[in-house]
């Protein structure tokens, strides 16, 4: 194999080179901007992560799994996973192999940027070598893989249901143009390589095509136009890239490095968030996942469209979208790129919140609870106060287990602060956090027992309660059961457990409540469960969702729970209990209630 042209250059490489230089400079500027916009401590974290060999290994693993192989999509939907990994991994292999063959056969040309891309145009085969045909076979093989992915992608646009997606994203003009470019790039490459196969040689794909074409097309005339078309398509695709959904192809790797460095969202648009929203592939997984989508009019509030608006800095519309969101976190759980949209929306709320004066001087009227011998402090929270059955059942269980506890807010207490955080009023929430911390510290408790997942999340994440064990009652009862302090008899009742958003996706508590309920009855699963469970609709996360819209979500969520026709629905959140109760076809009970009823 050797050079066909002494100069090693042809005009048709220009569109490709222009596109490539554009996108590379765009990315370089973008990355520098993101790093500059990071808060100083995050920037330090980022640079420290670059010199940490352990993080390098993790980064490499994540980049291979997420960017090239798309393991997360494979797990969820294999056909969709194949589509993504065939294009991403196949294209990657074409680039790598292109460089390897350039290095092996014409090493002087390795410094020429475009050479490996248009390798087959610039070389000719003097004789059929084993090495050459091996690489040509590999190149044809990976081209076939990519082509299969591209055809699946085309089919997906016609029938997305086959891929397990009920709805897919509405594309906009730049997205569409880039998509057509992407679809055309590989078939045109196949054509170009086929026409050139007479000179440069080919393998199982390109050679038969060459024979086929040479029967009715005078091939030498078609070589240049097809290479021009291939180069132009690549160039156009690269120029369009920053303005389209396909920007995730280059940015996702950068996002992974930032995320593994331990950086969190701190601004609704700049810095880390920029990397996040550019990595959103607009795949539309979040559309089907969002509980609000049970109504068609809410489609526009899907996270994917929120990200798109945020990219254009359309603040007014972003705010509407962010205020509607239930913050249930399901879009984050299903997102193949892990775009942390809940935190982005929350920081947007905090930035756009109207400064309001607050007056919490009445906090002084609350006094610290008396310590109990076992130093267990039970904080019921506002929502549990509305569902007395929960704190009464908790009391029953604790009494039977022989645990003496103090009920911190028997006569009403201070809110945990999470509702204010969700509304974007972080400063006011701090006052509650400060006062509650003070009261809890004064009580001398070593265990803080909670029955509301909303409180549980904020106590775990925003409170500084070192030395005090913060525990949700599902975890606590599970522990008591395993220690043998409570005995639960099996009633044989068919029970379905609803994972509350804040407990499941928010705090990753899934197995403890199931273990206890499995002992109390016959536990069945809902259609969507664990991190895919559907919000009850009562979430405090949404600021503007109306009562009617919430009701629709509740009914949809109940349908999902009734999948295995259970006799009773059990939840571990007072808010879910309160929301489900009026509409449920079967009895809705709280976790503590079931435990109390089935105790010996």
């Amino acid at each position: 194999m050797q050079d066909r042209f002494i100069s090693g250059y042809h005009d048709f490489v220009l569109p490709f080179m222009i596109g490539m230089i554009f996108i590379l400079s765009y990315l370089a500027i973008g990355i520098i901007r993101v790093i500059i916009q990071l808060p100083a401590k995050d920037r330090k974290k980022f640079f420290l992560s670059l010199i940490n060999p352990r993080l390098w290994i993790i980064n490499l693993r994540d980049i291979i799994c997420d960017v090239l192989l798309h393991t997360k999509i494979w797990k969820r939907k294999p056909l969709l996973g194949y589509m993504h990994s065939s294009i991403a991994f196949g294209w990657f292999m074409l680039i790598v192999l292109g460089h390897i063959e350039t290095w092996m056969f014409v090493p002087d040309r390795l410094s020429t940027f475009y050479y490996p891309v248009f390798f087959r145009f610039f070389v000719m085969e003097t004789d059929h070598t084993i090495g050459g045909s091996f690489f040509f076979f590999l190149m044809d093989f990976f081209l076939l893989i990519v082509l299969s992915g591209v055809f699946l992608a085309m089919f997906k646009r016609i029938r997305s249901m086959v891929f397990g997606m009920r709805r897919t994203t509405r594309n906009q003009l730049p997205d569409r143009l880039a998509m057509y470019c992407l679809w055309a790039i590989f078939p045109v490459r196949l054509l170009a390589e086929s026409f050139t196969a007479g000179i440069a040689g080919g393998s199982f794909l390109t050679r038969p095509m060459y024979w086929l074409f040479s029967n009715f097309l005078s091939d030498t005339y078609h070589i240049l136009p097809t290479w021009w078309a291939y180069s132009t398509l690549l160039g156009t695709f690269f120029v369009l890239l920053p303005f389209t959904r396909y920007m995730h192809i280059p940015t996702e790797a950068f996002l992974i490095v930032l995320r593994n460095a331990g950086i969190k969202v701190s601004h609704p648009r700049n810095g880390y968030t920029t990397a996040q929203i550019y990595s959103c592939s607009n795949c539309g997984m979040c559309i089907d996942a969002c509980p609000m989508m049970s109504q068609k009019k809410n489609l526009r509030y899907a996270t994917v469209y929120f990200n798109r608006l945020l990219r254009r800095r359309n603040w007014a519309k972003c705010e509407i979208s962010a205020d509607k969101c239930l913050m249930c976190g399901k879009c984050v759980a299903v997102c193949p790129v892990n775009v942390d949209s809940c935190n982005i929306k929350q920081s947007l709320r905090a930035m756009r919140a109207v400064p309001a004066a607050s007056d919490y001087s009445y906090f002084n009227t609350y006094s610290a609870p008396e310590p109990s011998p076992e130093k267990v402090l039970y904080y019921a929270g506002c929502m549990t106060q509305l569902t007395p059955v929960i704190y009464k059942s908790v009391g029953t269980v604790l009494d039977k287990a022989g645990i003496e506890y103090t009920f911190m807010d028997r006569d009403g207490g201070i809110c945990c602060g999470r509702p204010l955080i969700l509304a974007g009023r972080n400063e006011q929430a701090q006052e509650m956090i400060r006062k509650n911390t003070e009261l809890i510290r004064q009580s001398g408790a070593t265990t803080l027992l909670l029955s509301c997942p909303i409180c549980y999340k904020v106590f775990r994440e925003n409170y500084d309660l070192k030395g005090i064990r913060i525990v949700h009652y599902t975890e606590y009862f599970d522990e008591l059961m395993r220690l043998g302090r409570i005995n639960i008899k099996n009633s044989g009742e068919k029970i379905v457990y609803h994972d509350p958003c804040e407990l499941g996706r928010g705090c990753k508590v899934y197995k403890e409540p199931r273990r206890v309920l499995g002992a109390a009855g016959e536990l069945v699963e809902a259609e969507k469960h664990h991190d895919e469970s559907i919000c009850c609709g009562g979430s405090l996360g949404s600021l503007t969702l109306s009562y009617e819209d919430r009701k629709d979500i509740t009914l949809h969520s109940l349908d999902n729970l009734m999948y295995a026709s259970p006799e009773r629905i059990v939840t571990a959140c007072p808010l879910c209990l309160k929301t489900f109760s009026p509409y449920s076809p079967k009895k809705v009970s709280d976790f503590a209630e079931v435990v109390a009823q089935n105790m010996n």
Partner: protein
Amino acid sequence: MIDFGYGISPSSAINLERFDRARFDRLCAEEPDVLKCMACGSCAASCPTAGHGNMNLRKVILLLGRGCDSDALAMTRSCMLCGKCLLVCPRGINTRHLILSINKIYK
């Protein structure tokens, strides 16, 4: 009304001229639920500030209707936005958004 400058108890007279229609309309546009309130008082009864602070959503809406905007706004200052009123409201009023909107419009 003639103000004599003295009285036995603080005046409970309602001066409707102080009612700012334009502002209230803006509030209605932001959160139409405000018109749904039937002043049952469930919100006030369930409010965790009861007995401690002086938040009373029923009264806030009442005061706004009477044109006592600053008194209403002062009340919302002790709100913790916990959302209990949202769950007990028989009319399904989005109380949290209502309070946020009042803060936004009557600031």
